[in-house]
């Protein structure tokens, strides 16, 4: 496949998967919002995802009416208990009836508790579950994958290695054959007083020794030398990753969250996100996300689902 370089290309790719392999099935916990249902309808009309809507039947109906969407094309599972909504939706995925688990209006805690449930959830061994934001930014010709800015607060080295591998898998699902991974810090040198520079050095070495696969890892990098070849050159950094990072691993939730939000609010960009590392793709969007962002997250989940089933 050709590398996906814009989020419009991501939608086209999801459509292609739909056409060739049939649409994926999304199981949505508490699908009681008009904006969400219109995003799901767009995915259905584009032929890449059908949805099962779990939640209060009357509220789902009202939201669909508000969105002008005909529920004849949807399976609706009437469940009014919020805890049960999560369990029922996730069970559809773990049983194989659905391919993607998605959050609707359900509280994040209930949604995640179901995801991590030992019997019906989507745990995959000891692997760390992580979040990834993917962005396009004006002036750059490829997608940036940033992790983990939302799920793991202060990951240790082992967790960072998992986060890195999860994110690399998503980048590969986007057609990036061998993703270049920059482990970010405030500086590009190893500094014993800055723990994230030590983690970065260790992750680089784990990649060289084959402990982290299918990608090229380097770090520490300051953001400028990860994204700008000129800046890397001026600093005298020789690395295949310098200036060309596809994936950026942030040191912790504080730095990652601020970085991503600065991107979203201060640049011309398009952004969506996905939960990785479970046995199936998980879409966790927030109520502030636009229908377009929700649609993009579903498209990414479709691409990842197709990649994982290859």
């Amino acid at each position: 496949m050709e590398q996906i370089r814009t989020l419009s290309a991501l939608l086209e790719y999801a459509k292609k998967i739909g056409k060739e392999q049939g649409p994926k099935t999304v199981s949505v916990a508490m699908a009681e919002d008009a904006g969400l249902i219109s995003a799901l309808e767009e995915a259905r009309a584009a032929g890449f995802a059908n949805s099962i809507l779990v939640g209060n039947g009357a509220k789902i109906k009202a939201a669909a009416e508000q969105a002008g969407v005909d529920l004849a094309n949807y399976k609706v599972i009437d469940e009014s208990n919020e805890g049960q909504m999560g369990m029922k939706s996730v069970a559809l995925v773990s049983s194989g009836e659905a391919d993607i688990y998605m959050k609707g209006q359900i509280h994040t805690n209930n949604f995640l508790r179901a995801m991590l449930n030992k019997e019906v959830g989507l745990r995959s061994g000891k692997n760390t579950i992580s979040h990834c934001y993917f962005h396009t930014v004006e002036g750059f010709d490829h997608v940036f994958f940033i992790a983990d800015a939302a799920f793991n607060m202060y990951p240790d080295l082992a967790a960072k290695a998992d986060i890195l591998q999860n994110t690399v898998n998503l980048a590969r699902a986007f057609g990036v054959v061998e993703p270049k991974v920059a482990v970010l810090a405030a500086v590009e040198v190893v500094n014993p007083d800055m723990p994230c520079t030590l983690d970065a050095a260790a992750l680089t070495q784990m990649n060289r020794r084959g402990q982290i696969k299918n990608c090229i890892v380097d770090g520490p990098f300051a953001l400028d030398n990860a994204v700008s070849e000129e800046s890397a050159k001026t600093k005298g950094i020789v690395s295949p990753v310098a200036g060309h990072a596809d994936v950026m691993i942030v040191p912790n939730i504080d730095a990652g969250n601020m970085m991503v939000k600065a991107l979203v609010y201060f640049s011309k960009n398009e952004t969506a996100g996905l939960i990785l590392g479970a046995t199936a793709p998980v879409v966790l969007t927030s109520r502030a996300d636009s229908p377009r962002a929700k649609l993009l997250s579903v498209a990414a989940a479709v691409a990842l689902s197709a990649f994982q089933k290859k």
Partner: protein
Amino acid sequence: MTIHNLDFLMDLCASGRKMTIAVACPYGDDALAAVCAARDRNLVNSVLVGDAEKIRVLAEKDGLSLDGIEIVDEKTDYLAVEKSVKMVSGGDADLLMKGLVKTATLLKSVLNKEWGLRAGSLLSHLFLQEITVMGGRIFGLTDGGMNMYPDLQTKVGIIENAVECYHKIGVACPMIAALAAVEVVNPDMACTLDAAALAKMSDRGQIKGCVVDGPFALDNAVSEEAAKTKGIRSPVAGNADILLVPNIECGNLVGKVMTYLAKERGAGVVLGARKPIVLTSRFDSMETKLLSIALGAVVAR
């Protein structure tokens, strides 16, 4: 009332008493061009401290005239830095600017006990950044990297420095957002606790001349709509002038998103010494360097 468009710094600088800037090692990377542009706009008097021969060759190569700019010949970087710091501490210059010399070398001189620029307060970096997609709105980002992992008391010092600077550029009561990844206090996230303490210190008048609130995630500090969605009620929510970051990784990443991904212009200055220090990076554009000179000169008054 948030501030917009950094050009006001040049007007503010040109309209007051003219300051003298000592530039240590002004070799290339637009530093010389910025000094010449500052002269052309009548912003400051400049003294270039460094290898005179080298400076003249560079100016000629870039087609820059050095008319009206004083040169003090010091062959080595070390002596050039020492001389420029002494000029500022001795009163021959009003502010200091770093050219192509290591920040550590410059700071060592600045902190010299006999002839340096120590004022007994904390040194911190403030960067003003103009954001095009928000109509040119200006955000101050601090600390940009002088303090790696500041504790609560250090954060108070960082805020005080930034507030003094904002007063000088005409913002009487800046709104300061103490940033974290979330807008709620979480015992497992240390920076949210510091943010809560800073907000309370602001309430009790322990931090003056501004309003501090936090914790905020960046979105609800800069966007009223995002703050509304989260139901946050605070004069700072959506209206932040200054973004206080918890540590060097956060400051560096946010600052570099602004500079490298959003490609914005800004103005940076080190505060807390007896006189301001214009400390730009070699990657900063000529315009950012010029705006930084203007900011430094206004703060020096």
